[in-house]
């Protein structure tokens, strides 16, 4: 270990900073993704029909499906930038812990999805006539943990498929079956905040979500080095 | 015991037929692939 090498946390922060900076410079993309997610919400309403009651009931599901769809775009992008200019090879040559690259990118992707969720949520609230039954701040844990659930394995899979020509197709194909538990738990817990939680089930769903994150973030952190070294 | 489902042999035959067919077809496919990649 080189003495002057910064600690793991500082390396992670540097990677997050770099990724978010790249994202910030291309603001148009974030805007496009937000618009895409909102368009999906509109489409769900048209597909289901104008019954306010039904829409209200399933709103959490629509929001998460829209986020999930949009997330594949951020995720494919997160390694597209690196592979295009051969930047990933350069990044791997630096004395940076490979885990730092993974956790940095995964956290940056989580942050992006959280931002996206906060863009989409108010629109959904207007479209579906939503009101929070449990206090608005209760939305934060499902959104953050749910975003992490998509971004954690999603970042690893993006690296895995970075060199596949049909990445736009392969990433969702591989990722969607895996994140079913995260989707179920995120939708349920969000729905409980919106519709009220008389049975007190909120905490168990958040625990499911947190355990999912824990399992797949650690597994991804463990295997990421193998994936990028190849 | 009451409420026992009566009949339904056609479902049983479909399941056993599908099982044997799938296993046989996959085995044959392996032999065919071995033939074409000696």
């Amino acid at each position, binding site marked *: 270990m080189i003495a002057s090498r910064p600690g793991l946390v500082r390396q992670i922060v540097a990677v997050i900073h770099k990724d978010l900076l790249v994202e910030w410079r291309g603001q148009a993309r974030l805007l496009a993704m937000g618009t895409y997610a909102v368009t999906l919400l509109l489409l769900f309403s048209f597909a289901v029909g104008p019954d306010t009651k039904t829409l209200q009931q399933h709103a959490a599901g629509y929001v998460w499906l829209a986020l999930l769809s949009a997330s594949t775009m951020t995720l494919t992008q997160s390694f597209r930038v690196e592979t295009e200019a051969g930047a990933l090879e350069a990044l791997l040559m630096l004395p940076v812990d490979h885990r730092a690259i993974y956790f940095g990118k995964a956290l940056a992707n989580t942050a992006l999805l959280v931002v996206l969720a906060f863009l989409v949520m108010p629109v959904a609230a207007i479209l579906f006539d939503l009101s929070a039954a449990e206090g608005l701040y209760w939305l934060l844990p499902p959104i953050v943990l749910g975003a992490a659930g998509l971004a954690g*394995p999603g970042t*690893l*899979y993006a690296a*895995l*498929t970075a*060199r*596949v*020509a*049909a990445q736009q197709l*392969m990433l969702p*194909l*591989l990722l*969607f*079956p*895996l994140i*079913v*538990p995260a989707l*179920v*738990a995120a939708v*349920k817990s969000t729905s409980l905040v919106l519709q009220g939680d008389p049975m007190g089930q909120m905490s*168990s769903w958040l625990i*499911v979500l947190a355990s*999912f994150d824990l*399992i*797949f973030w650690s*597994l991804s952190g463990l*295997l990421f080095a*193998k*994936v990028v070294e*190849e | *015991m009451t*409420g*026992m*489902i*009566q*009949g*339904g*042999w056609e*479902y*049983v035959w*479909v*399941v*056993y037929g*599908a*099982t044997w067919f*799938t*296993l046989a077809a*996959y*085995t044959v496919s*392996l032999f065919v*692939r*071995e033939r074409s*990649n000696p």
Partner: protein
Amino acid sequence: MKWENWVGLLGLALISVGHYQGLFVAPPEAMMGDVGRILYAHVPTAWVALVVYLVAFVAAVGSLGSGKRGWDALVESAVEVGVVLNLLLLFQGAVWAKPTWGVFWTWDPRLTTTAIMAVSFIGVLVLRAMLNRPAQRAVASAVYTIFAFVSVPVVYFSVKWWKTLHQPFSSPETVDSPMVTPLRVAAFGMLFLATFLIARRWRLAYAKLSREDEAPDLPPAAAAIRLEGGGA
């Protein structure tokens, strides 16, 4: 004759005996009547499909750890055999669900998990088909196989909590004793047959990977042409 052919024949014999007993000797099931006889085909498929996926998982760990092509070939063969059994399992389950539950599909945790398992592992096969560089393909499919396998219990429990439509149902522990013998015989038969299939498939995969390694920088089709031209 290669060893796996003997195992395959043994499997065939055991499955035949088990299915014969299940169909004609065992008594009808207490609730499901003759429809319950599907058990002797369905439950062994389920057990063996899981065992085969376990083999794929172990092979994936071995492949990541060692980088040897023998492990990679085992990942390919076990996943493919697993997917075949998995799809068969789904079909059997749907046909069984119709007379017992009245529908082909319910959101029962086992059924749902089986379906998600199928798409996950089909993903491994698709991914393998899309990657040309052997080393990269080996790592990618091993990593993805590990993820797909680990996610099976996670999916199962989350779906179980999400919705339990489950009706009292003959799970292995509650099966009556006259049913146990044919069930066991059929299950071991299935296991031996799966071993045979994996071994045969492994030889195919190993031969293909070896040929690729002899012509490393070319895509598979070009490598094949070069080998044919060289008379290898």
